[in-house]
């Protein structure tokens, strides 16, 4: 991993550049939008004054430099929409998004192992067919549709959960479960397939010959390789969860980071968007690094032998 550091640094630099430039490609002038929101005339003088106050009148390299240095030192800039520090905007929202995203992914990761194992033990059985159907449904049903249906059933019809106005636990329940459900489907199929592949290995025949049942053999000797496969799938799933969280946050009126990002896109709030994108990129790198470390712990063999 240390050998990869220069490469990683280069990738992160490239990502920071893209993140900096991307909001500039959006149509609409943030200064013009802000002036109109403040009911101020969008004269050239007013536009210039605002751009100067925001530092937008400086050259792009200077702005980029400040963006990177500021990000690394914890100063993520000021929201053009609210005037508050970006960090101050994000802080109260982070726990909500973290609970939904990380919570959902954790539930999916923990649940996919026993489910995948049970599906692998009885190929073609009821559980196997159910997990396959779940995977297809997750691909076909948009998350916001399921969110609305779930809210309608559990709140409006059965009044089991205060989806919108309950305490944090009630409000987080459905969004977290939805995120977990959408992550669970592909992970379960992955674990199931990994166990099926493991079942065909010579060491599994040895295990069976020693008297272990199919179920026991898969559990004792198949789960570790399945875990390795699972770890490899976690980074793309984590990426999906970031996007999926946005959908459920809006659908369930959760005051999370994604809601902030949606509002920032509408108002062309460049500092918020940049900070968010770069933070997510770093998060993905961290997830990938954690996956690599865990993989090494599970499989200490050198890479050449691990294949």
């Amino acid at each position, binding site marked *: 991993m240390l050998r990869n550091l220069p490469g990683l640094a280069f990738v992160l630099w490239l990502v920071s550049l893209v993140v900096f430039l991307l909001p500039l490609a959006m149509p*609409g*002038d943030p200064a*013009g*939008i802000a*002036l*109109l*929101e*403040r*009911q*101020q*005339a*969008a004269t050239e003088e007013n536009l210039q004054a605002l751009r100067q106050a925001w530092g937008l009148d400086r050259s792009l390299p200077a702005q980029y430099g400040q963006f990177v240095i500021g990000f690394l030192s914890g100063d993520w800039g000021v929201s053009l929409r*609210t*005037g508050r520090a970006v960090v101050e905007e994000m802080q*109260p*929202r982070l726990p909500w998004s973290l609970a939904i995203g990380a919570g959902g992914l954790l539930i999916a990761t923990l649940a996919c192992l026993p489910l995948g194992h049970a599906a692998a033990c009885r190929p073609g059985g009821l559980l196997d067919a159910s997990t396959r159907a779940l995977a297809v449904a997750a691909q076909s049903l948009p998350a916001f549709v399921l969110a*609305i249906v779930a*809210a*309608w059933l559990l*709140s*409006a*019809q059965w*009044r089991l959960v*205060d*989806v*919108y*106005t*309950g*305490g944090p636990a009630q409000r987080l329940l459905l969004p977290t479960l939805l995120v977990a459900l959408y992550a669970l489907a592909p992970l379960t199929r992955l674990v199931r397939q990994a166990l099926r592949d493991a079942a065909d290995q010579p060491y599994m025949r040895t295990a069976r010959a020693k008297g272990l049942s199919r179920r026991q053999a898969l559990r004792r000797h198949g789960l570790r390789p399945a875990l390795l496969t699972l770890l490899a799938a976690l980074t793309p799933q984590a990426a999906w969860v970031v996007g999926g969280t946005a959908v459920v946050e*809006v*659908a*369930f*009126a959760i*005051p999370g980071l994604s*809601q*902030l990002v949606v*509002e920032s896109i*509408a*108002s*062309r709030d460049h500092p918020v968007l940049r900070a968010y994108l770069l933070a997510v990129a770093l998060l993905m790198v961290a997830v990938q690094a954690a996956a690599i470390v865990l993989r090494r712990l599970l499989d200490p063999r050198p890479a050449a032998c691990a294949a």
Partner: protein
Amino acid sequence: MKTWMSMNRLPLLLAFLALVSVSAAAQGQQQRVVVGKTFLAASADPADGNAGWALTSHGVGEKLFSVGRDGRLAGALARSAERAADGSWEVALQPGRRFSDGAPVTAAEVAAALARTNERNPAARASVGRMTLQALDELRLRIRTERPTPVMAAVLAEWPFVVYRVAERPVFTGPYAIAALRPGDAVDLVPNAHHPGAEQRPPLTIKRFPDGQSMALALEGREIDMAFNLPVESLPRLRSRDGLGTKSFPVGYQYMMWFNTRRPSLADVRVRQALGLAIDRRELVQAVRAGEVATGAFPLDTPHALRETLPTDTAQAARLLDEAGWLRGADGRRARDGQPLRLVLVAYPQRPDLVTLQPVIRARLAALGIEVRTRVAEQPSAVASSGDFDLLLWAQHTLPAGDPGFFLEAFFRSGSSSNFPGLSSPEIDRALDRLAGAESPAERVAAAAAAHRTVIAQAPVSFLMTPVWHVGLGSRLAGYEPWGSDYHVVRADMGLRR
């Protein structure tokens, strides 16, 4: 005991205790009234953006003057506003009023607050420019303005001029005080102990929803007691539920369509007049299933509404387009000098009715031989300020302070910041000058009507309809009567305990 507390009974006991505690907590929650809205104050500082409007809407802030249920201006924290010989105004406050922290509302506090807002918030300078306020004694203050006005009461009724005590956390006078503000989520309110009737007033939470449909779901689930501004398609479902009701009310907003006069195809007044004549306003009302046809800029139930209907005359519209040189080709489409007449009609999703109106208008204009493409823009401010439109559907409260001067001046004066059509009309400017000089109510009504008709004749805009908004109510608020648009959602009479 040990047997009784064995493993198969202990979980049951714990579950029972959990259920009891959750139920008790739920009972506590039920004491609080919960109001659902799609907009929430982002800040408790009235000098900040449109926070002043939001705080009044939330029942936290009050102004010196306010528009009542009958659409007429009346004193709120002030008793009177009288003009002095030198053009300044002397405002007399109501005695005995207090802020929510118990401090008395004095002229000095009011002067400090309004001066601060006027200095920091450009919207507070829109009507009269910079203000100089001076406390004359405990209950009187003098106001001098950069630009003269004959209607200071109306100016002070504008949404930026919420009265507050300047402090680290501003303190207000409304029936409610802010206990906690969770930006983007909810605001918890407690009754202002120093506002009349406080002991009968329940605690209240305003919960923000991303859209009307999720708000309707929350109302169905009895999670909220009121859903403010529901989509019309949710009404039958809600009405069919026991314990739920809906009420509809005209809101003072007008739907209108701006013409971008900077575009060559719309620079000719005949073209703009033709577009206005092509529209059947009754069709628009049918499309959104509620409302009234517009007769002009102001709703029919206001003193400033014009009584003559805006005509629909497709034959006349066609003649005007022919005169302007836009002739029908063999394909039925209009063109001039080889250029087809193509227009982009923009609406924004924050007002769903406007999106509903798009295809209706497009069909009408297509029948005239005009090719119309529709676009939904998420950021109407950007579209309006940049002039990136041919036709722009818009919703605007045209009498927020009860006086027509605000709307006419802001949107039709040559060069004004909200002159979205970009029309510079000496006739309109002269009419607005006469309105600015009109002092008595009768003079103002007449001058406003004249300016109003001049605007209609010059056609920078076509007024379409007066919408009706819908409010869903649970049993606790079944007696609530909505009025005042979204300027007065939480009022002193909401949910009073008997």
